């Protein structure tokens, strides 16, 4: 891709239906547009553009068809299980809490497949699940365990990952090439990132996922 001359930038690439609301901005370092996703959101593209997000204890799965280059990223976490749901975290993901994870993963995969991606060509990278707050139960680890189990069940292989540890992360992913750049963020950002994630999880707990997910 030719770099545009200094001071000018190309028009943003076409956006797939359903993602018109996602804010995209020009990134000088990567000389490309990048879509910004927040907790609970996802984005899929067929173009040469990036997708980025910041992760505390949340997980982002970056999935693409390695042949056609169509792919995307999600950003999710599982809510803490309520006291009345002791079995919510059992392995097979049938508990109410894991529905949010399944929902996030299936939506991302389904939209990739609906736009021409082939299941047999999918490759996956996973990021996040940090233990960014001390004295907090390790929700990051639970999210990591969930996504690993999910991908195993779906027979999708993970080609790269950077999960766990104590740092929040900034992830930029380019589905066209499969390149993901992960940057650890300083602890100054911990509380802002955690509060964004908390606002998301509080919102989904209040308004549960409705309906069944269509499987391909």
């Amino acid at each position: 891709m030719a770099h545009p001359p200094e001071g000018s930038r190309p028009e943003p690439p076409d956006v797939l239906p359903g993602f018109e609301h996602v804010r995209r901005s020009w990134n000088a370092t990567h000389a490309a547009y990048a879509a910004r996703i927040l907790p609970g959101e996802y984005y899929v593209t067929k173009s040469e553009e990036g997708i980025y997000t910041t992760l505390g204890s949340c997980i982002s799965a970056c999935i693409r068809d390695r042949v056609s280059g169509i792919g995307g990223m999600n950003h999710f976490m599982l809510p803490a299980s309520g006291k009345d749901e002791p079995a919510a975290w059992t392995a097979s993901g049938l508990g109410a809490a894991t529905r949010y994870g399944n929902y996030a993963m299936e939506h991302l995969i389904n939209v990739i497949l609906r736009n021409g991606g082939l299941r047999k060509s999918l490759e996956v990278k996973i990021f996040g699940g940090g233990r960014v707050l001390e004295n907090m139960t390790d929700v990051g680890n639970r999210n990591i365990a969930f996504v690993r189990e999910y991908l195993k069940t779906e027979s999708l292989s993970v080609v790269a990952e950077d999960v766990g540890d104590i740092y929040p992360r900034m992830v930029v992913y380019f589905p066209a090439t499969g390149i993901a750049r992960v940057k650890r963020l300083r602890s100054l950002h911990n509380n802002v990132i955690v509060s964004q994630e908390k606002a998301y999880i509080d919102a989904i707990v209040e308004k549960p996922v409705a309906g069944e997910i269509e499987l391909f």
Partner: protein
Amino acid sequence: MTMTASELVKDIGGLVTLPDVYLRISRLIDDPKSASADIAKAVSQDPSFTVRLLRVANSSLYSFPSSVTTVAKAVAIIGTSQIRSLALSMSIANSFAGLPNELVSMKNFWRHSLFCALIARHLARQVRGCDPDTLLTAGLLHDIGELVIFNRLPGQSRDALLLVLDSQDQLPVHQAERQVLGFGHDQVGGELARLWNLPPLLEECIAHHHVVADARRHPRQVALVHLANILALMAELDTFDSADVPPIDPLAWELTGLDADCVEPAVREAQVEIAVVEQLFT
């Protein structure tokens, strides 16, 4: 409508004050008639400061051959001017406990400051005209303005941090603060140092650690704190990749005469020292 950095600082003047022990020691040191015995006496009047001073004097931070058991001995060995910086450093965390905020935990805030302090002290040993203990204090205080704006302007401070994240961490925090608040934590810290009559060297290091070219009287020390701040982020993030941290101003290399070879030893040493020092200062 919009507030300036100096108005903001005047606003908190009554909330955060320098502890009496620092002011007393400071006055005695500036007084040519006072002897080190007077200073030891002033220290002894503050029991909690005495205890912490002895802990510091006996720690690996100062590798004295024998144990330091009395204040008089501590003052004699550490030196009166260093006692002043120690008093300042050790009391400042306490005085800011009255200025809580929800954006950064005190532990994480002081951890970064301590990394910067240890690295500034390490680098100062290699730079002519830089006193390691003064630079330790400068490093410890460099971000003090952050605690002021996080407490007084929490919503705007949060917006500034969100702007940094939205920029893919490309926009530096102090620039995001200028965009949202009209001034940065560096400028606020400088105003606070001036209000407190801290030595001009400390004031400049705090005020200009992001914009080295603005330093007037102590450019070399300011440049050193600029370097130490970025190396402190490397220590925290456990990385030596310069793409993981904000860029170093080339002027800082020029003014200090240091080069990239100094980075790794300084960062590694600080990563070892931090555990001990964190206990002393919290």
